[in-house]
């Protein structure tokens, strides 16, 4: 590093000012640079020029390049899970839609059924260790997840839910229905960093890679609306017709193969992905513990409870609407009793 005496005779170069501008460097060096800047008109001009270049370039880059480093508070599981669900959902969609259809419409998929696979905590730990490369990178290294909305939140009567393409599921046995809280205009956009993902596949000994044509292209999950109704310890949530928009001309087979052969995928998930070939339009939800696949009135349902047993939930898709029913109480819940209650009230 340069010394103070050197700066007395020679001004720091613009590269050093750039680093200073970006908050780089050791505190003592930065302190000396700052003191120099206060007294040197020439360097003030250089610094101003840097500021202008940064404004223009960052403003320009904002339009074409989403910031890949996700903010710290943002790094929640839900973002990663949304991305995982998107990718898995896409895997399902790819198989069923066929390449010709996709080339024509630029691709829009609808999830029609739901299934679950158990993932053990050890598998999750192993997966997160691999993905983070021993803690060296974050999920953001592999792409970005951008969420927007809801645009509006309103309270509507059960009868009005059809305006949002939802059915009023309120069981008559629960008495008069409360207004539903409806949120609209939600969207999740996933962009993959294909070079980074492929690097990881290669490092883990995989042979099937994602096509570069997918790099940084938007995959968009659109959630037109979400409604919530509560009754004591019960909550009913509905999400109609979530659709996935995929950029046009996706090499379907390559993506499907890469997904199925990800070397770091837990075995159970790998099996589930390969089974998607047969499970048309099925969204596979990986859950910890012992989730159950059920069949109620000819519809696939998934059910699970949290380890303490105070919360149980069941989800399914009916007529294009994702339904999630949960019960939360201070006493442990019997999952079988919960399931029979749900089938009775929400057949």
């Amino acid at each position, binding site marked *: 590093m340069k010394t103070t005496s050197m700066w007395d005779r020679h001004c720091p*170069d613009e*590269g050093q000012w750039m*680093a200073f501008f*970006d908050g780089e460097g050791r505190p003592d060096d*930065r302190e000396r640079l700052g003191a120099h800047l206060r007294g040197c008109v020439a360097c003030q001009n250089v610094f101003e020029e840097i500021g202008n270049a940064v404004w*223009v370039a960052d*403003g320009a880059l904002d339009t074409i390049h989403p*910031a890949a480093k996700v*903010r710290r508070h943002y790094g929640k599981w839900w973002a990663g899970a949304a991305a995982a669900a998107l990718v898995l959902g896409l895997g399902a969609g790819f198989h069923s839609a066929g390449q010709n259809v996709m080339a024509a419409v630029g691709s829009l998929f609808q999830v029609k059924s739901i299934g679950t696979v158990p993932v053990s905590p050890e598998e999750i730990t192993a997966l997160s260790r691999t993905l983070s490369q021993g803690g060296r990178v974050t999920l953001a290294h592999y792409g*970005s997840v951008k969420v927007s909305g809801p645009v509006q939140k309103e309270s509507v009567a059960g009868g009005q839910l059809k305006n949002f393409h939802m059915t009023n599921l309120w069981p008559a046995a629960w008495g008069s229905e409360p207004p539903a809280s409806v949120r609209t205009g939600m969207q999740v956009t996933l962009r993959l960093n294909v070079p980074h993902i492929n690097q990881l596949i290669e490092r883990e000994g995989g042979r099937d890679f994602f096509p570069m044509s997918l790099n940084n292209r938007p995959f968009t999950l659109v959630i037109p609306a979400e409604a919530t109704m509560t009754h004591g310890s019960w909550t009913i949530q509905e999400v109609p017709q979530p659709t996935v928009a995929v950029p046009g001309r996706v090499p379907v087979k390559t993506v499907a193969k890469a997904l199925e052969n990800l070397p770091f995928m837990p075995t159970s998930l790998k099996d589930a992905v390969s089974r998607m070939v047969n499970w048309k339009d099925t969204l596979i939800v990986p859950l910890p513990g012992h989730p159950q696949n059920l069949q109620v009135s000819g519809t696939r349902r998934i059910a699970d409870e949290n380890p303490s047993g105070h919360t149980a939930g069941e989800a399914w898709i009916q007529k294009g609407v994702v339904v999630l029913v949960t019960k939360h109480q201070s006493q442990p819940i019997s999952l079988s009793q919960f399931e029979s209650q749900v089938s009775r009230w929400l057949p």
Partner: protein
Amino acid sequence: MAKFFEDGYISMTDYVDGLKKGEGSLMADVKATIQRLYETEFGALTRHATYIVGSREIAEELVQEAFIRLMTKPPRDDARVGAWLRTVVNNLALDHVRRVKVEERVTERLSTVDRTPTVEEVTMIEFDRERVQKSLVALSRRDQQALLLRHSGYSYKEIAEKIQCPAEQVGVILIRALKKLKMAYFDDETGAGPAREVQA
């Protein structure tokens, strides 16, 4: 609120709450976002401004002003708010050490022949995506990579590793690339550029 999964896992409620806290947060939940940024960024920004202005008190005032600007004119991409704030603080601090009066600056600006816009004007520019893309690919591969890494929030050390150059050279590589991008974008145009339109 009902939670479907064990802590750390996503429930539909968490998911939708997550959506709510997402991109639209600056508009939808300004107070909470600013509060959080204030807690995480204020210290570092104040230290940085103190290096330039030489007084912690003045530095704090400048950082406050940057936050006020954030509330009135938030950047497009709220994942980059930290970098946006730092740029504003740098400019405010520079203005302070120059002690330039507003009137003088206005006169100076009117007489300048610089074709490129000033800081305030840039915030009003609607960039043309295609032209940005075109300007970017006109740069060398290394310059493009360095710019995108910086834009994504990578440190100079990380950038040096990725573009395989000594860490001390990252600053000069970046500033030259930033200027080239700026030049490519504005010089690409024939006739009046966006800068002119804004100034008019």
